[in-house]
């Protein structure tokens, strides 16, 4: 019996804007059933990488394989099996939460009644069941929870999540974490970026750190920490952050 292909394989991925490489030769392999954290300072290339994985942005060069399928040739099949929680809101402001979830479910090929029922159930779980409130009136945290619900509705094999906990309250974040851990136990793969390193430390098996478009370190979380350091200490050491603010003598 052959081993299933990795969830994500990226080889020599590059994205150049003008004369600046936002992503500069990234190589990455994420095994299936893994909870993978993709970390980096602001502007390092995390969001650009995720956008290339989801097909929203074409790479300048390099190869992408998701769940054994090639991007962009098998893009539609890939999209059927991934759930996306983006950094920016991808929600239609003029729909209610229920209408949006039904729309997403039907776009993933679910029967209308099934999409509606699942949508209702997800809204209950995520405490978003304020009937007929338009998404335009949602807070930031509510939008993130709804985006998470939309990523779950078709039961994907791979989750791509860009700052999924940003703006979410503690209760909502706890709920999302529990759901994600349960999904991993059932065989799904989670690929997420986050600035909240405590959350990454608690959830992730493997971590990669990107800086200025390049992977600077990657591996199992336990190996990277070496037993003594926290993830924050590893992160700050690897990206070489300095105490720059001393230059602001007028502050």
């Amino acid at each position, binding site marked *: 019996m052959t081993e299933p292909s990795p969830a994500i394989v990226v080889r020599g991925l590059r994205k150049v804007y003008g004369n600046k490489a936002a992503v500069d030769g990234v190589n990455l392999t994420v095994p299936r059933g893994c909870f993978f954290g993709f970390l980096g300072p602001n502007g390092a290339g995390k969001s650009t990488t995720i956008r290339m994985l989801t097909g929203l942005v074409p790479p300048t060069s390099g190869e992408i394989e998701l769940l054994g399928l090639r991007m962009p040739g098998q893009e539609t099949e890939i999209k059927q099996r991934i759930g996306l929680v983006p950094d920016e809101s991808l929600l239609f402001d003029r729909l209610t939460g229920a209408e949006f979830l039904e729309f997403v479910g039907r*776009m993933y090929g679910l029967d209308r009644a099934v999409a509606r029922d699942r949508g209702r159930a997800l809204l209950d779980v995520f405490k978003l069941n304020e009937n007929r409130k338009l998404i335009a009136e949602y807070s930031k945290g509510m939008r993130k929870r709804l985006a998470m619900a939309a990523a779950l509705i078709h039961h994907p094999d791979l989750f791509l999540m860009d700052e999924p906990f940003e703006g979410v309250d503690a209760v909502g974040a706890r709920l999302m974490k529990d759901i994600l851990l349960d999904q991993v136990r059932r065989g799904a793969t989670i690929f997420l970026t986050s600035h909240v390193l405590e959350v990454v430390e608690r959830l992730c098996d493997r971590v990669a750190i990107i800086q200025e478009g390049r992977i600077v370190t990657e591996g199992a979380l336990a190996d990277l920490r070496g037993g003594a350091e926290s993830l924050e200490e590893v992160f700050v050491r690897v990206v070489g952050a300095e105490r720059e603010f001393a230059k602001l003598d007028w502050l």
Partner: protein
Amino acid sequence: MAPPDISTGRGRVRMIAAILRAQWLSMRGFRLGSSRRGAALSLGIAFAWYGFWAMLGLMVEEAMAGSGAQAGTLLPTGLLLVFLYWQLAPLVSASMGASLDLRKLLVYPVPHRLLFRVEVLLRLTTCAEMLLLLAGGVAGLLRNSLYGGWTAAPRLLSGALVFVAFNLLLAAGLRCLVERLLARKHIREALVLFLVLAVATPRLLVSTGRAPRSLDEMFAAAHFLPCPWAGAARWMAGGGWVAGAAVLAAWTLAAWAFGRWQFERSLRFDAQAARATEIDPAEAKPVRLEWLFRLPGSLLRDPLAAIVEKELRSLSRTPRFRLVFIMGFSFGVLVWLPVAIGQQGRLDSAVAQNFLAVVSVYALTLLGQVSYWNAFGFDRSAAQVYFSLPAPVSTTLAGKNLAAALFILLEIGLVTAASLLLRIRIPVAKILEAFLVTPVAALYLLAIGNLSSVHYPRAMNPERVSQGGAAGRWQGLVFLFFPAALLPVFLAYLARAVFDSQTAFYGVLAFAALLGAVVYRIAMDSAVEAAGRRRETLLAELSRGEGPVASE
């Protein structure tokens, strides 16, 4: 360390300069960055539109220079028309020009009077055309020796400048007032209808011969000194200019007070509260028109049905779309009706005989600016959803086109109903004709619209009821592209007129429909290919934020 001093003139000028510079940099980044073609098209349209008004300005200049003493008689009426256009055109066309994005600026310590000054200056974006006409009029009077010639330049120019200031201040106040009213959920559509009626009724009265005398009296009022345009005319033309100056100065002061008052009220206005959904979650009543939204699903399959349903829901809840939709049938009927009736009050003109088709096509073109011409505009950054879900772009565009088509058919029905309510007799054959002609015209416009949507996407703020930017750009677009798109339909009418035959009409129309289907298909393939190729640019344009001045 002390904060920068904004109480001095220099400090205030720096603030205004900072706002305008931020806006310029925002626009420059857009124009020169990802959409050079869009910028070139916009510039071309602006050139054509303002070139047309510049020509009119030259004609006004010649008229004022060469009409001798008559210039003094023409001037008040001319200034009255400038005033009416300046104040009413933005309201009726729902194109209120650029304005300050107060949400972004109120967090800074900018004095309100400073913001007001910038807001007033921004009124220049609504009616730059009138400045061209005024400039022509002033230049003509300068050449007219009967009005003092070049020696009267200080009086002429000062009068014209104060008249411009009066209009700017009044327009700023009206804009604030109307925007607040339109932000309230239950008032906006009624207000639109009221404005449309207020604008179109005088013309209708003239055309039907109901009250010509009252309109003659109205234009005689152009010379009535207490009116600001009469005061401006007296000031500029001389002959009692002191009284004219006093009148105009008083009106300008009043306009300043009104504008300032309305601006302050707008600063305190909670638009979000005005728009909030007032629903008790415990009630959970079904959505009105739910059956209409679900209709596509019973006829089509997903994902096409899902996209059509989403578009029907979203657009019907978008204030700007609803406004333009209502204008389509109300404004359309009331504007074209006087044209149809004419001065003699007869119904035998070409427009009268094809009234329903003309108004329906007019409504179709009006709907373009809020639907098919910029299909992803209201989605903004959420348009990325279409590219991350497993449905081809062609399905997305087709779904949006279908939704637009359903609204167009609804518009034709409402135009018919409005016409019948106004007791305009329309034979059944003409109703059928309108339902045939408009969809054929729609094929061509949707085809161009799909290309425009992927090549020139622009984010549209669904909360803004009025369209920002210069109205001239949209009108220029209409003048450039729409006649070409409607040519096949026009040829069908020409065939009927030339051969005096319904068979010729329907034959040419059928051919136009067939050709339209081919054009639509070719345009769709091209649009899909372009969307895939320039996906990143398209999404970046739709996600683009704005500078301190909101233009859409």
